């Protein structure tokens, strides 16, 4: 494989592994408030103390001065690797308190600054990524499963099955999906725990997204079923299930894979949009969308640039998935020629 392919695969792996082990990389609990440090700017890492250089970076504690935060340079705090901190479950399985890095109390290392409640933005971006990317991936799976099945049925059986299913896809495709999502979310109960909200949110996003993959799959099935090997299988009296399993599905899987890589960033954006408007996962759970919602305030938008970090994370994730989609598509073309 070419270097570019390896770079893309590495980027995808790094992105997802980082989010999977967010608890380890994040120095703090994402919901932990530090009420002495609201809207603190990103902590500066220092390597030079007076005239001496240090290999290990250190920070200075921030204190509130007359015109904002200032570094208290009287005591340097070294940044330690594998530091003990708040308890979390690594990969959702193992209880641990070890974090990749951290500093001694009372200093705080906030690489991306803090929000209005003094919560570490870096930790929240990592934990928020878990929610947003998981919502994108799960919603994609939810969309592709019915989309794939219905597309295969429509393309294979044609006639009224095709007509009725495709009429359904037209209805879903012409829906303004954002407003539809807002409407659907408004009908769901108000009193929901963050876990149930997440589940419902992904279901809603996924279920209204089945139409596009269904149409694509139908097109592929229509084309495949008229191929000679499928006609031959028919001639030998092969069952529908056999033809679908061994002749149609392999062709469809490629399209579904490409669709998956395109839909994930789209559904991440859907989650971000809903949470941005307060209809997604609520406080104190972090998601990229609800983190960005504070930027709706003009004073926050123009004063605290570091709170845009989740937007940068959304862009990086979307670009990574776009490159992956490009790569998958070119490989599929290559294999089909």
């Amino acid at each position, binding site marked *: 494989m070419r270097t570019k392919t390896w770079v893309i695969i590495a980027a995808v792996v790094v992105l997802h592994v980082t989010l999977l082990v967010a608890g380890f990389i994040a120095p703090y609990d994402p919901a932990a408030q530090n*009420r002495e440090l609201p809207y603190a700017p990103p902590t500066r890492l220092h390597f030079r103390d007076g005239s001496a250089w240090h290999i290990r970076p250190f920070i200075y504690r921030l204190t509130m001065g007359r015109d904002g935060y200032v570094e208290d340079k009287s005591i340097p705090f070294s940044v330690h690797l594998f530091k003990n901190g708040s308890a979390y479950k690594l990969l959702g399985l193992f209880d641990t308190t070890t974090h990749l890095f951290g500093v001694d109390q009372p200093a705080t290392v906030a690489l991306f600054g803090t929000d*209005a*409640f003094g919560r570490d933005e870096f930790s929240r971006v990592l934990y928020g990524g878990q929610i947003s990317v998981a919502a994108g991936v799960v919603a994609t799976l939810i969309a592709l499963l019915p989309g794939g099945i219905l597309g295969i049925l429509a393309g294979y059986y044609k006639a009224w099955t095709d007509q009725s299913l495709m009429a359904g896809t037209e209805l879903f495709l012409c829906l303004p999906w954002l407003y539809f999502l807002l409407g659907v979310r408004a009908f769901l109960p*108000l009193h929901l725990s963050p876990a149930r909200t997440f589940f419902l949110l992904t279901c809603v996003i996924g279920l209204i997204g089945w139409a596009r993959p269904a149409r694509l799959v139908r097109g592929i099935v229509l084309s495949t079923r008229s191929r000679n090997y499928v006609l031959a299988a028919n001639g030998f009296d092969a069952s529908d299930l056999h033809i679908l399993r061994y002749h149609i599905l392999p062709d469809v899987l490629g399209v579904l894979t490409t669709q998956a890589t395109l839909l994930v960033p789209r559904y991440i954006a859907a989650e971000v949009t809903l949470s941005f408007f307060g209809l997604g996962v609520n406080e104190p759970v972090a998601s990229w969308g609800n983190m960005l919602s504070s930027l709706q305030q*003009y*004073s926050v938008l123009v004063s605290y640039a570091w709170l845009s970090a989740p937007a940068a994370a959304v862009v990086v994730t979307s670009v990574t998935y776009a490159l992956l989609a490009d790569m998958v598509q070119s490989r599929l073309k290559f294999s089909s020629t």
Partner: protein
Amino acid sequence: MKVITRLALLVCLFARVCHGAGPLPEKPNPGEELFRAEQVSGHYGGQLTIGGRAEPKTFNPVVATDAVSREVIGRFMADLIEINRASQQTEPALAKSWKASPDGGVFMLQLRKGIRFSDGHPFDADDVLFSFAVYLDEKVDSPQRDLLIIDGKPITVTKIDRHTVRFVLPRPYAAAERLFDGIAMLPKHLLEKSYREGKFVEAWSLNTAPAGIAGLGPFRLKQSVPGDRVVLERNPYYWKADSRNQRLPYLDALTFLFVGTEDAQVMRFEAGATQMISRLSSENYTLLSRERNRSGAQLADLGPSLEYNFLLFNQNDLSTKKLDAIARKQKWFADLKFRQAVSAAIDREAIVRLVYQTRGTALWGNVPPGNKLWINANIPHPPQSLDTARRLLKSAGFSWNSAGQLLDSSGASVEFSVISSSSNTQRMKMATLIQDDLSHLGMQVQIVPLEFRALVDRVFQSFDYEASIMGLGGGDADPNPEMNVWTSQGTSHLWHLNEGQPATAWEREIDGLMQQQMITLDYTKRKQLYDRVQQMIAEELPFIFLATPNVLAAADARVGNFHPAILDPYTLWNADELYIRTPVESAGAR
């Protein structure tokens, strides 16, 4: 001679154009009893544009219920007696003087002679009688009507002569003269027809031609563009004059521009498109403070407002509603120790610091410190104490499981949701802080942001909520407007609406004390009664008080006589005195 006349006309026209778009003020007539504002000086000319968050719904002062409509209407209408927003005391307005009987039951008001509505029609006692007849009419259903009905009986109004009116109250009423503030006098000659035809409620809508609307306020309606702006111009017959006996107002025109949100207000203000903001959040105030050196804007921090924000638990009677899940939780909400524990766990100082950037004050009672006349200074201010909260919960039969979750006596985990207005970022922030505070007690709190109307519907109508963060107050400093919150029959008795009879002994006592203070004329005795009410509210905690924001306002460097007050409408209460400074004057002021 012709040439001279033409030249003179040209000069007059030029002067008129230079002067601005508004009509010139009429010269005071000798028989006209003007109000002389001795401390006020300024000069004519200029326009002032204010960015508003919403547009008015009506120009009819009798049916207007929203603050935006009242803010605009208040600039072209006037009352018999007004509350001076700076001194918080009553002062003569359309009534030049008044006399109360020793028992406070009869008021004799002397109207100003020779004053006219903004269309030039004279004002007299018939307009007063007509106005009160409309306000008291049940069919019109004015929000002011409740204030004019005492013990179920209306105030009676009698014309003694063309400039004297007598008001008889069904029983003595403390600070009765404050009732007249907010009762705008209507022009009988313009509104009598629609009233007789039963169409009064539809009168003076946003589509009414400006010529059909007249009032006694400093301005009159010039133009209304729905969804965009309302333009007011000088009322040339206004009844106030400045220290040099110049008829007020100074401004040629006052424009309300509807921009939607506070953020949009700030952006327009920064861009110079508007010159004043009535009420600022602390974040935007901080933002404008940073630019002050460049812009020279006048920023005012007036200290604590009269608004109080609170956490409210639903204690309504839900027996007729299908809300079993909430009804089960009401067992906790009705337990005083539970409410005391919640109150003890809340870090109010953090709310002041993080929500209001220290431009606010923590609250433990219903009267904020901005109300210096009525606050009970003896109400304790206990700091946050999780230990106290845990002790209270334990004594009320609550316990904790191994995961630290709080359980009630039946073993159910204590979980509830808090609804708050999604558009009010400050209350949403309070909710997040409270959620974190209560999580230390093992309570699981979910925050539900709701659109404001949906929130009001749940709190006032359907009762489909568990807890809510809301705010009240801001109108008058006097205790009487608070009657509808604290008496059991009150329409804003939010924790238990439609009570019928007081549900608890302490509510019965508060009912009695509030009724008693309403008919007590002596300030000291009234204060003692209201102090006791405040003490009981602080002890029984029907609301868990959180904090009050400071009143923050901003004006362009060129706006003269900018003296905002802590009472609504904050900046425009002296719109008649505002003027636009010359560049030299502005530089001097900076």
